[in-house]
């Protein structure tokens, strides 16, 4: 028998019922979650390939230039769209579906429809990425996918949102946990954001600089109101769940949610700092960015105190390793982001690789790592198989963790140098290009390390899905 919490000793019958309920809920999500997650990993591998191509092309500029479809300017947006909308969004949706079922304590309904939605989403990404490579990119950052890809994605997104909301209304647990708040927020914001931005940037474009404003309002909110909520929702569920301790301050977590909802949508304009925009637009955005320190602080303090005294669990749990790494990155990247929005800071950092490093710390160090963690937790509970090899898990963790650290350090430093030189008119432009080359090589090496980790993870996943591995959880 396992150790019991002294003040609430459940009977064997209660335990059995709780266990059966949980297993049944996990089983109900099986097809939907596996389809979304496996597709996500597929796009991660595709996206990593594009990333490496783009990265190597920056220091081997005459490589693969015979035809247009692999030119740098097409491979780069193909990378962004496959990892952000293919990997990130799909993994996030997989986690969201599962967490909503678990937190609502009710079996997932419309799982079949969610599988169909995943297929539609896959088609959308394939059409979009293919379109970009064939030279139909819209050249609007984060919205590059040409028609009809956005329409396909929007349809799928609406189906997913609808399924999640309907399942939410069927929940048996009346109380709404903080993770559910985040997920519901994300599921509400993203379709709105996506459709509005698509409408105002592509279909019925606002003219001139207003379009840039809408563009960056969208691009930044994809991070703030879609990716971040899903990542934080996962962290708020999995960290307490894995270590077996409630979140340190639930109150703080709620404050964090509402302040994020309020401030984040303001943050995007700093991408246009110094540009031909009314200055007060940018100022408002800087205020919004600085206010983001409130939710970030709330999250950071909370996760730290939840983990305190339980750091030894990192030894045992791959999920915890990835999620805690992600949570720590979240704190760093958000604090950095807040200060990056300041004008003095931007004068150097804007237009440089510094920003690229920052973006990767957010999308990768935080979100991707959390999603890996969530996969390590969910998948065995869906397939009924343990992970085939702990060695592969460790290899995956260390190559990705070291990869992103190397990536971040290299490009942050290189980018800062680049920025200092850019605002010094005495430095000839070509000297900057030359000076930057070693850092671009460093980035390619880091990229190889991360991609290697992804291949290892892909292998683990394929093994698990094909039934290799011990039965999960003994035979309850």
């Amino acid at each position: 028998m396992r150790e019991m919490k002294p003040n609430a000793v459940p009977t064997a019958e209660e335990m059995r019922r709780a266990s059966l309920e949980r297993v049944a809920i996990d089983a109900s999500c099986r097809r939907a979650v596996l389809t979304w997650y496996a597709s996500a990993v597929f796009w991660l591998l595709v996206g990593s390939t594009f990333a490496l191509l783009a990265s190597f092309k920056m220091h081997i500029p005459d490589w693969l230039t015979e035809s247009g479809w692999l030119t740098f300017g097409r491979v780069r947006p193909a990378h962004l769209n496959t990892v952000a909308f293919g990997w990130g969004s799909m993994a996030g949706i997989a986690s969201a579906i599962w967490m909503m079922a678990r937190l609502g304590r009710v079996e997932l309904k419309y799982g079949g429809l969610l599988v169909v939605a995943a297929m539609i989403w896959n088609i959308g990404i394939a059409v979009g990425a293919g379109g970009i490579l064939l030279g139909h990119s819209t050249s609007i950052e984060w919205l590059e996918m040409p028609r009809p890809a956005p329409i396909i994605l929007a349809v799928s997104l609406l189906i997913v949102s609808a399924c999640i909301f309907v399942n939410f209304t069927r929940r048996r647990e009346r109380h709404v946990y903080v993770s559910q708040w985040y997920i519901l927020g994300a599921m509400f914001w993203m379709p709105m954001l996506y459709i509005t931005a698509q409408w105002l940037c592509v279909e019925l474009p606002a003219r001139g600089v207003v379009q840039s404003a809408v563009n960056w309002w969208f691009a930044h909110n994809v991070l703030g109101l879609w990716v971040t909520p899903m990542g934080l929702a996962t962290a708020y569920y999995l960290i307490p769940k894995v270590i077996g301790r409630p979140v340190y301050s639930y109150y703080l977590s709620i404050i964090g949610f509402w302040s994020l909802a309020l401030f984040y949508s303001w943050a995007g304009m700093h991408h246009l700092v110094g540009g031909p925009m009314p200055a007060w637009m940018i100022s408002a955005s800087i205020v919004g960015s600085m206010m983001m320190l409130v939710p970030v602080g709330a999250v950071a303090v909370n996760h730290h105190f939840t983990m305190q005294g339980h750091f030894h669990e990192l030894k045992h749990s791959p999920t915890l390793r990835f999620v805690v790494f992600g949570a720590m990155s979240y704190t760093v990247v958000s604090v950095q982001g807040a200060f990056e929005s300041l004008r003095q800071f931007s004068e150097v950092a804007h237009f440089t690789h510094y920003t690229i490093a920052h973006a990767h710390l957010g999308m990768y160090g935080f979100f991707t790592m959390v999603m890996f963690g969530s996969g390590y937790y969910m998948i065995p509970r869906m397939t009924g198989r343990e992970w085939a090899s702990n060695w592969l898990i460790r290899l995956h963790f260390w190559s990705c963790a070291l990869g992103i650290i190397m990536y971040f350090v290299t490009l942050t430093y290189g980018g800062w140098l680049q920025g200092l030189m850019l605002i010094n008119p005495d430095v000839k432009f070509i000297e900057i290009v030359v000076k930057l080359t070693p850092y671009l090589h460093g980035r390619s090496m880091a990229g190889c390390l991360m991609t290697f980790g992804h291949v290892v993870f892909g292998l683990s996943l394929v093994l698990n899905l094909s039934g290799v591995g011990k039965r999960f959880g003994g035979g309850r």
Partner: protein
Amino acid sequence: MVPAELMVRATLLFSVIAFGGAAALVLAWAVQNGQFDNFTRAAEGIFDADEPIGQPTDRTLSAAAGERDA
């Protein structure tokens, strides 16, 4: 003004009302519904009799050493 500009404004206004209004409504609902009344219970809601507080649920990397609770 160009009609397209009007449409742009209409879209923006609509989205602003939808965003702000939804946030206000949801918050009002949450307060009325007692979602913020008992934070201790809320935080403990993710545990159950079979996976109680104090029970780590992922010991994958130590499974080989036989530490895993079956």
